[in-house]
């Protein structure tokens, strides 16, 4: 090992002798001579951060994260903890995938481009729409991008963007920020027993509406029953119909293209990532009508000089590095590696596995709701709807107290109202669900 590393970056390979020769070649005494920084703005203090060995650093992080409680998370509402197969970790962690940059030199990046192309194809199959980009940051920012797309492609005189009243705060607020620089205005429409209140929406949609947003499943896990009518309504008023969903739900629920969706957004990392404190993968798919207006990166097919099929980033004139202030989005770095993981996880499941995972989400949520409903002091599900993965339950006791008691017993649930909790089965084993029901019985009475 190089002794000179003791006080420097462990990842700078220079030996003292090499460093001297390099300084000599450049014609300076020391690195400091290379900095052209006026004295007044030089920093001669310290950050006060101690260097550590790799082992010590690992211990530090382990010790900090060790303060997170061990809980079985019956949590969802847009972020899910499905089991991710080892195949995904091991192959996505191959350093060629992990340590490469955006594919600006496609001739040496065919593998990643193909994986992203396969990811796009997965989304095309799931949504029935012709175009999917190779990622936005997350569901919330994808929704924001959908709104700015709506503004660009709709010629209507108004600026109304209609969203459900139950929309998650993080998504709603992100959307508000994305439209802050436009004339768009966000308006809520009511939901009825978890789903879109179609009659109320009909009253609200008019020629001033540029976009109608709905989610399937909804944030409460209910399955929407009037998507076709919503699509017709949006189309009749020349508004863009934007649908929020995810790859697992899309495996069995109505195909967005069949219900008139113009754009599908959502979190695709439902597959590919474990719960990651909200880190996600923005799904963005749309009709080929909007090809030139799509935000984000697109991988397309071409040929190389030997006439073999080859992949490349394409239609880059939409993007910020070419189009600057007239770009379709400011996105540059995106979630490519997460998209790779999602594609791998989906491939690992295959169509049978994906359909099975989604259908089990329906039956397991329904089974758990029935078991909770049988307990004293609980009514579940609250909404008289079909559910996938999760549902809302009414508890006679204050919901916050129930959640706290459950946490003491090792379970995390959502509190969504004074007497409402929300429970999700995604990624939770049958054994843990049995224990959860037993714990629930103790705390709910």
């Amino acid at each position, binding site marked *: 090992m190089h002794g000179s590393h003791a006080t*420097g970056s*462990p990842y*700078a390979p220079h030996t003292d002798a*090499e460093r001297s020769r390099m300084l000599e*070649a*450049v*014609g300076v005494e020391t*690195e400091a001579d290379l900095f*052209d920084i*006026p004295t007044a*703005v030089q*920093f001669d203090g310290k950050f006060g951060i101690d*260097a*550590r060995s790799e082992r010590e650093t*690992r211990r*530090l992080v382990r010790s*900090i994260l060790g303060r997170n409680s061990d809980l079985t*998370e019956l949590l969802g509402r847009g972020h899910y903890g499905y089991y991710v197969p080892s195949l995904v*970790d091991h192959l996505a*962690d191959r*350093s060629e995938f*992990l340590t*490469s*940059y955006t*594919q*600006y*030199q496609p001739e*040496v990046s065919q*593998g990643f481009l193909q*994986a992203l*192309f*396969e990811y796009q*194809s997965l989304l095309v199959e*799931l949504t029935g729409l*012709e175009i999917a980009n190779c990622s936005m940051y*997350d569901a*919330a*920012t994808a929704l924001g991008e959908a709104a700015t797309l709506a503004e660009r492609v709709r010629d209507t005189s108004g600026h109304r963007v209609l969203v459900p009243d139950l929309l*998650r705060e993080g998504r709603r607020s992100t959307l508000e*920020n*994305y439209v*802050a620089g436009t004339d768009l205005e966000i308006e809520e429409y009511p939901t009825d027993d978890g789903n879109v209140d179609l009659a109320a929406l009909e009253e609200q949609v008019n020629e001033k509406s540029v976009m109608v947003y709905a989610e399937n499943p909804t944030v409460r896990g209910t399955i929407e029953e009037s998507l076709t009518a919503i699509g017709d309504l949006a189309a009749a008023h020349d508004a863009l119909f934007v649908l929020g969903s995810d790859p697992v739900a899309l495996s069995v*629920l109505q195909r967005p293209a069949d219900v008139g969706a113009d754009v599908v957004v959502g979190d695709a990392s439902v597959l590919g990532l474990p719960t*990651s*404190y*909200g*880190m996600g993968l923005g799904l963005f798919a749309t009709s080929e009508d909007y090809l030139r207006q799509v935000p984000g990166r697109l991988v397309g*097919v071409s*040929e190389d000089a*030997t006439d073999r*099929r080859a992949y490349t980033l*394409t*239609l880059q004139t939409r993007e*910020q590095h070419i189009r600057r*202030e007239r770009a379709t989005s*400011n996105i540059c770095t995106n979630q490519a590696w997460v998209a790779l993981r999602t594609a791998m996880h989906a491939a690992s499941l295959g169509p*049978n596995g994906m*359909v*099975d995972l989604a259908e089990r989400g*329906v039956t397991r949520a329904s089974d758990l709701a029935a078991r909770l409903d049988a307990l004293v002091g609980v009514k579940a599900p609250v909404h008289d709807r079909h559910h996938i993965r999760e549902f809302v339950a009414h508890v006679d006791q204050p919901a916050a107290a129930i959640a706290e008691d459950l946490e003491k017993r090792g379970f995390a649930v959502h509190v969504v109202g004074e007497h409402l909790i929300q429970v999700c089965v995604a990624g939770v084993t049958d054994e843990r669900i049995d224990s959860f029901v037993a714990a629930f019985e103790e705390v709910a009475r």
Partner: protein
Amino acid sequence: MSERSDDASAAPRAEGVRYDQARYVENGQYEPLLSEKDLTRVEIGAEGDETDDGDGGDGSDSPLPDHLTRDSLELPELSEPELARHYTRLSQMIYGIDSGPYPLGSCTMKYNPKFTEDVAALPKAAVHPDRSERSLQGTLELLYRLQDYLGRIGGMDAVTLQPPAGAAGEFVGIRVAAAYHEHNGEDHRDEVIVPESAHGTNFATAALGGYDVVSLPSDDEGRVDLEALEAALSEQTAALMLTNPNTLGLFERDIERIAEMVHDVGGLLYYDGANLNALLGRARPGDMGFDVMHYNVHKTFATPHGGGGPGAGPVGVVDELAPFLPAPRVREGDKTKSGESTYELFDPEHTIGHVHGYQGNWLVLVKAFAYIARLGDAGLSDASAKAVLNANYLASQLEYDIPYEPFHHEFVASAGDQDAADVAKRMLDYGVHPPTTKWPEIVSEALMTEPTEVESKGTLDRLAAAFNAVAAEDDETLEAAPGRTTARRIDQTSAARNPRLSWHAIGNTDDE
């Protein structure tokens, strides 16, 4: 840096280096698509699943009524060993930082320490964002400590970790500026000034924020033209977005004057952190008069680029802007009875709200924290020192002209009469990744080069040999390149003219 060094050591001959990238060819194509290996259609609903292979039930009973489901789903159904080979072959057709030098200017492609992957994969890092704060003390503590680290490194008073990428950080900066001006009754400010040579994201972000973009030319020396700045600044100015060192690698020597001019008209000064790797421990944006900045942790703090992301773009601000930062942030709470620190989330008083559904790219932030904790003061400042040394040494070995100096962590050479894009393609054949090309436009046929601190002298010599070999080659050779990569030169025009963006779009055309 036009003088050639007379370094006694013999520089490696580029001709001795030949790079042949792995390639798998089947039926005249590179690795077939998953869809060409299998496509299985699964029927959903009462008709059942005709291809069910016995993993429970006969597949005929969908738990949902037909009108709520799709008809079918058609995707590849492959076994784990088949997939392992597929993705391994794909990986072999990718050049990463572990394959060789990757001197993309402005991208800071430095080595990604392996142990950071391990800490991000700790089971305790896999947490749901809706858990109670009391059950997430580890996550909150790590975020708090990273906020603190970044504040110290940038000289900023408050930091948000929510932005999931650099451009998202810029967007926070612009939204914070808008909220600040509006709070002060100055929402007439509708212009953001951006230097001609800035990153494309600066322009696009300002536009996304609803601002008119005022483009600022450089002076003859490649820096901000103070007269042009004076002319651009007005009561309409919301902010000036600046990278320092700039894209030419030059430090904006007049930064104090620039800050004063911007502040005099009531504007804010924004620091684009793309080039922060030049300054660690030697200068801090906060000390230069910047009010708001973003950090690219996937550049400066060595988290992997992952083929285009995920990154993270935390934003630091001065005290006056802290009330406008995104919600929520992390702060210390009351100590426990046993004296242990606790952490809690809070919404800044005049917050702009969310710019991400949750708290950004958590797993990336864990890696960045680990990197900073590993290097400490000495490691961070050494990283910048070596990054600047490497850029200067590499430049000293090049035949290409480098019109602007003194540069720091990166330089922009000119390919002269050669086409910079062709130079890049030819460099691939010498086993190195080429620099960023054709940008910034202020240098004709630009080769924007940033070797970072992780390359040894030997690697830099090999990189220089590749540059120099290409410099001596004729246009014909360059136009025919690359010849040793998986794919040969790819036709960009036909890809854009006839967009085929999924396997559905090529389905029947290729396999008869």
